[in-house]
């Protein structure tokens, strides 16, 4: 081997490698820019492969579908797979609306498929997806059972006529407590007003939810205002209450689902919590809508822009809007069921639950609970900041 040959060979390989790194670097930089540059909306056009590819990717919240504890599978979902021939990959990877959105946002903005055909998002996040063009319009021809949606949920202001979304489950934000501990400290067996949470005897034994709309909705209602239509001053008044109770140590922590464990251990006695969670805790724990009103929220099914199996997603929506199937899910998750006829169908699933007001609320309960005011993006950021500041962030 001569020196010249040797040299050219080496420098060539080095240049190639350098080029490769350069490309990689540019690629990284480009994707980094894409993550932050403003985009008009999804660029690509969805191609629905449902007819050839019988599969579906579904992202949902944990403990939000009936589970057979022995076989660890989902009975209603297995039945759907058998009946339709569609294989469903069901993932419980939505733990928090913001966290989930942060995970898929870059792809959505760049007009890429996020690898999911069906996602379940809470009202305000569902609204943001529709507004920014991240959700696809539903083809109601594939979802004839959509007519079973109860009137209370039919017209929401973020999606009039439910063209882009269908409710999965609803729930109340309300007062919850550890029965034995409440009796010991306050000497009462039921909480019915938010003011009771601020009793000095409960100092450091109260938690509220980190979900702004539930906590603030209940506080705004407690001061006699309307959480679905409040003013700046009313908001500030409620924030002042929250700040005061955080600063004087009355409120121990502001949490997501974590409060359940703290209630069980007895560290926490009374909470602003979620109805389904509380019912799943069992007999030793009590719940009530505050007299001034609780919050009412809904988690909605949506099909992400560019999802590859849109029709399959619509078929699964249709399936879960059959009253008998909806009843089976409700019996397990114990949240409010938005499907008409499910209450009657519950007779054959679990008759004891047929009159359960937390699954099939009475009209009075629905009147005594508020859907939080729809906020513009600017308002959302402003109120979130004000709320997070009050809770120590």
């Amino acid at each position, binding site marked *: 081997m001569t*020196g*010249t040959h040797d*040299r050219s060979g*080496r420098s060539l390989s*080095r240049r190639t*490698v350098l080029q490769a*790194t350069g490309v*990689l*670097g540019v690629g*990284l*930089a480009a994707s*980094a*820019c894409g993550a*932050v*540059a*403003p985009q008009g909306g999804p660029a690509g056009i969805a191609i629905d492969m449902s007819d050839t590819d019988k599969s579906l990717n579904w992202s949902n919240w944990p403990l939000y579908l009936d589970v057979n504890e022995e076989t660890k599978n989902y009975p209603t979902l297995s039945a759907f797979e058998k009946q339709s021939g569609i294989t469903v990959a069901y993932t419980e990877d939505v733990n*928090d609306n*913001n*966290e989930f959105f*942060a995970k898929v946002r870059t792809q959505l903005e760049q007009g890429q498929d996020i690898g999911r055909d069906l996602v379940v998002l809470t009202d305000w996040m569902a609204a943001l997806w529709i507004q920014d063009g991240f959700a696809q319009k539903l083809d109601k021809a594939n979802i004839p059972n959509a007519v079973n949606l109860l009137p209370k949920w039919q017209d929401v202001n973020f999606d009039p006529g439910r063209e882009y979304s269908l409710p999965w489950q609803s729930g109340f934000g309300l007062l919850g407590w550890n029965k034995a501990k409440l009796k010991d400290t306050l000497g009462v067996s039921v909480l019915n007003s938010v003011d009771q949470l601020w009793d000095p005897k409960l100092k*450091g034994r109260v938690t509220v939810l980190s979900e702004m709309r539930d906590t603030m909705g209940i506080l705004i209602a407690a001061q006699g205002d309307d959480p679905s239509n409040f003013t700046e001053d009313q908001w500030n008044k409620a924030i002042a209450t929250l700040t005061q109770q*955080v600063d004087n*140590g009355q*409120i*121990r*922590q*502001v949490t997501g689902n*974590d409060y359940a*464990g*703290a209630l069980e*251990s*007895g*560290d926490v006695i009374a909470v602003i919590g979620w109805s389904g969670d509380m019912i799943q805790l069992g007999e030793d724990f009590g719940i009530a809508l505050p007299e001034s009103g609780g919050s009412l929220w809904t988690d909605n099914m949506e099909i992400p822009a560019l999802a590859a199996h849109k029709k399959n997603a619509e078929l699964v929506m249709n399936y879960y809007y059959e009253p008998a199937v909806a009843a089976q899910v409700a019996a397990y998750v114990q949240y409010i069921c938005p499907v008409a006829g499910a209450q009657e169908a519950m007779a054959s699933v679990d008759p004891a639950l047929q009159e359960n007001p937390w699954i099939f609320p009475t009209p009075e309960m629905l009147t005594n609970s508020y859907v939080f005011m729809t906020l513009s*993006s*600017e308002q*959302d*950021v402003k109120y*979130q*900041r004000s709320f*997070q500041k009050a*809770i*120590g*962030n």
Partner: protein
Amino acid sequence: MAHAIPTVVSGSAAPPPAQRRSRTGYILLFPGIAWLLVFFAIPLVTLFATSLQVPVPGKPGYFEPGLQFSNYATAMSEYWPQFVRSLVYAGIATALALVIAYPLAYFIAMKAGAWRSFLLVLVVAPMFASFLLRTYAWKTILADDGWITSTLNSLHLLPDHRVLNTGIAVVAGLTYNFLPFMILPLYASLSKIDPRLIEAGGDLYASPIWTFAKVTWPLSLPGVVAGTLLTFIPATGDYINAQLLGSTKDHMIGNAIQINFIQFRDYPVASALSFVLMAAILILVFSYIRKSGTEEIV
């Protein structure tokens, strides 16, 4: 070596051998440099660029490239309490970890004999369980009705009558979680000390305490420095302990970064906070290493 003899006369052909050798060095360095470039330098530049971005008017949560240095002022004026708290909590946790780890590492290295490896396995064993689970376990240990809290309460040592969801719990969690990172480097330093040096101290009529101060402690300094750094740096940026064991008043800088990134979608402020945290730690670490004078570990 054959290559050392110049073989080509024509001017442009072969480079001088010394140059060729140095090129081999660069080629060998290439994987390491490429790694640093792709996984360290580029992300760092991206992070810095993000910290200077400007919001797009009318589209909250969207940003475009810019040079808005005021993001740093916003970040610091808003979050200096969390920042100070992070340094204080991490500092206390590091000091506690050192106090707990030193005797333990000393015992394992000097006195444990045949039990050495077994004890070392015990030190590392908790790390086989997930960080998150271990922190959750502390919620049970420090529960209001647990024996630790009741004992401390009966001695009237707790102003809030509880440990869980206070700063004490956060510092305890940090100390516990990063303790192995303190023990292992200390053990490595202590076990390398030649016992004859300690014997010599005794032979020269030094008391055990004097021998420790003049022989053992200085020789274990590299371990002390490495251990404190390995504990302090991750503890400062940690947010899990503050989130699970703290109250609303115990949030650290990691919580602020997380909230800004995920809840507010304010990427510039989150990046600015990360950058300041990194810079602050670098400055602290360098001045610490200069002071402690153990250059060999850097």
